[in-house]
């Protein structure tokens, strides 16, 4: 059987991305009879769910095509957009195939959404994943492990199979394979960005959120091979930029396309971080749950949602810019996003100290007009191409 064509793969990824009603999840449940549990952005240990036969499903809010009818009645105008679209999707039945939701500790809005979920959907699991901010294994590590054990027990109560070290070890290996494929795609984009436009890569990142890990890994692999085989993609004279700040509420696809059309070649980003939050393979040892905890404590990406000691603030961002040979940095955060916007002055200080050019703008997941951002990004890209030493 021949490998699927690139266009066919992109079409599949796009269809999965666009499907608010989680058709792939419904189909998986029909086929397996298993539980499906949604999770909000940034990070949850999907391995644990998978080891118990549960399908983890990423819920990243809505887009500009989602009409918010009920969700706006739950939130004031000065709250970000992702909780209102998530409520909308819950109330309009799109999330019906999910047997529960995990709310990782991102910010107070997502934290409080966990309580709303308990009230609005009392028959479903609503678990607030209180990720540790203390990274000492004996303190934060022990607390986190107990929280994972509690989550595991809640899943069993709802019909999932009990967690065993063997099953968890296998799941970790499967997710390691997925992480390797994602890293390979990011590396390919870093070295040959014209091969892998971000607006297209993004579709695959989003598609992976609704697929079993075995399928998402294969989809990433096929996509990588297909773009490598495609002779039609030629280098472009664009400014290489890192995009940061879009780790929770996701930007509309139109915004990513706009940035690229404005002359920015995105060579690293914060999108759909759950796929890369643990940076390396997790070693599978005698105690796989301990390995999962240890990976979170010691090998996670720097994130505004994660406490950072003085002196190291912005360090990883500077390293990322340097590592991918970027010529500039885009602070691209959702409006009213506390973690991103409170972090921004500290990150600006760090990158300015390194002489890294930057610009900043905000969006909402349902933004439909990008003219102002296009002009700003275009000017930024032009200035880099004209005036930078690169």
């Amino acid at each position, binding site marked *: 059987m021949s490998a699927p064509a690139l266009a066919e793969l992109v079409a599949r990824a796009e269809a999965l991305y666009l499907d608010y009603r989680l058709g792939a999840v419904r189909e998986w449940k029909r086929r397996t009879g298993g539980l499906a549990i949604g999770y909000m952005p940034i990070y949850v240990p999907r391995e644990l769910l998978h080891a118990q036969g549960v399908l983890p499903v990423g819920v990243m809010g809505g887009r500009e095509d989602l009409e918010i009818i009920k969700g706006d009645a739950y939130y004031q105008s000065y709250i970000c957009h992702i909780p209102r679209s998530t409520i909308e999707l819950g109330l309009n039945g799109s999330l019906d195939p999910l047997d529960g939701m995990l709310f990782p500790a991102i910010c*107070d809005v997502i934290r409080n*959404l966990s309580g709303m979920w308990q009230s609005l959907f009392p028959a479903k699991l609503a678990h607030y994943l209180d990720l540790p901010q203390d990274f000492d294994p004996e303190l934060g590590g022990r607390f986190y492990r107990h929280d994972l054990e509690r989550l595991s027990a809640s899943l069993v109560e709802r019909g999932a199979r009990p967690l065993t070290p063997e099953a968890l070890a296998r799941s970790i290996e499967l997710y390691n394979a997925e992480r390797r494929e994602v890293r390979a795609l990011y590396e390919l984009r870093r070295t040959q960005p014209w091969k892998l436009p971000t607006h297209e890569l993004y579709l695959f990142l989003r598609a992976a959120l609704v697929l079993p890990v075995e399928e998402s890994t294969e989809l990433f692999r096929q996509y990588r091979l297909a773009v490598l085989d495609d002779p039609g993609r030629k280098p472009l004279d664009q400014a290489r930029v890192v995009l940061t700040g879009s780790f929770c509420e996701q930007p509309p696809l139109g915004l990513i396309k706009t940035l690229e059309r404005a002359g920015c070649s995105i060579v690293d980003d914060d999108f759909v971080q759950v796929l890369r939050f643990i940076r390396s393979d997790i070693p599978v040892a005698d105690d796989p749950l301990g390995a999962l905890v240890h990976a979170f404590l010691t090998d996670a990406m720097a994130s505004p949602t994660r406490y950072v000691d003085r002196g190291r603030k912005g360090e990883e961002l500077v390293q990322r810019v340097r590592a991918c040979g970027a010529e500039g940095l885009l602070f691209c955060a959702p409006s009213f996003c*506390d973690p991103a916007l*409170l*972090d921004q002055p500290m990150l600006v200080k760090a990158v300015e100290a390194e002489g890294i050019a930057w610009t900043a703008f905000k969006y909402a997941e349902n933004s439909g007009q990008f003219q102002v951002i296009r002009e700003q990004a275009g000017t930024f890209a032009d200035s880099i191409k004209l005036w930078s030493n690169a």
Partner: protein
Amino acid sequence: MSGPAPTPTPEASKDSSQLRQKEMIARHFDRLAAAPETGEKTAYTFVPGNLSELLLSFDVLPVLPEINSLQSAMRGRSADYISLAEKLGHSEDVCTYVKSDIGMLKSGNIGPTGQRLPNPDLLLLSYTGCFTFMKWFELLAQEYQAPVTMLQVPYQADGRITDDMRRYVVDQLRRKVIPTLEQVTGRAYDEDRLRECLALSAQAEDDLVAVLRAARHRPSPIDAYFGAVYYVGPIFSSFRGTRAAVDYYRALREEIEQRMAHGLGPVTPEGEMGAERFRIVVEGPPNWTSFRQFWKMFSDEGAVCVASTYAKVGGMYDLGFRHDPQRPLESLAEYCLGCYTNLSLPTRIDLIVRYLEEYEADGFLINSVKSCNSFSAGQLHILREVEARSGRPGGFIESDLVDPRYFSAANIKNRLESYFQMLQQKSRNPNPVAAS
């Protein structure tokens, strides 16, 4: 061309307890101002989940940035501070407490009494009930050379404190916070001294609860939202665990019991309040930039706040919690875990419904502040749920903590008047469907 001279605002009326607590707090700021000379150590920390007794046992003076911000707002300084912080790159979308504090810091760090606040010897990040606290101290950590120690307090997502949560907090206290305090002060941890402080805390807490519960009486002798700001001041800030707090709360209790015995209502800044027409429960922090004007909008209508959630951000004493000298660190952990903004939304809903019943309130109001997602995200859901469960009408107004740009007096007054008219109608005709 100059306009007519502005009418001077009359001096606010204050009862004796208010004057007393004002003196206490002024003395604290005097000590802070003198700290560089006296050598007293200072720790910047937050109100919710504060470790006053532990700091006291090491003779460390607390500085509370959110108190400084609200004081800046009451003195009309916060607008300039916020503007300065925004010029320095802080987003217009984020917490104005943070921006006011940063602006104050960049303007010379002059505190509420006009004296310069000392630089911290320790940044004690009590990460309780508010994500922004973490970012705030990351920002402060860039400004000062002081060591930072962080105490993560798990969120009560399922409405209860588990053994794991308590143990996590206690272990952090033992292994991180106390050793850092020992290092900063050069003193050994003295658990006996901590126990003494905790015993004093419990005495003061008993009297505070008696004061807050006085609002069950008709007419209520206190305003449990606006007035309570003054009542909780000492215990939420720097005085919990001191003899001064015990004496203050004993005197306050006696004062309130006397008012109750004489059938008096609260004292407002405009003087003795008139007849009590409406009994209201309030959710959310007050606006500080127009605090007096905001209070007057209630008192002019004869509306008394008989319970508020804001008066519980520094501890849920009215639900029975007391600091316990027999279990010092466990007790501190339970205190931190139990602060209002660390409670889940369903628990907050339960609490407001309970207050409506216990305090025989006519309705409840939510003051939703733009700055505080910990309070505000989900308040429209709270509004709906509380109305459905209690059958009592809710009102919703929007303002901000310390940014005067978000206090629209005419709009808020209009909404409040409509709300009180609705309560009036409802009291005349409590069951309109049956009546019709």
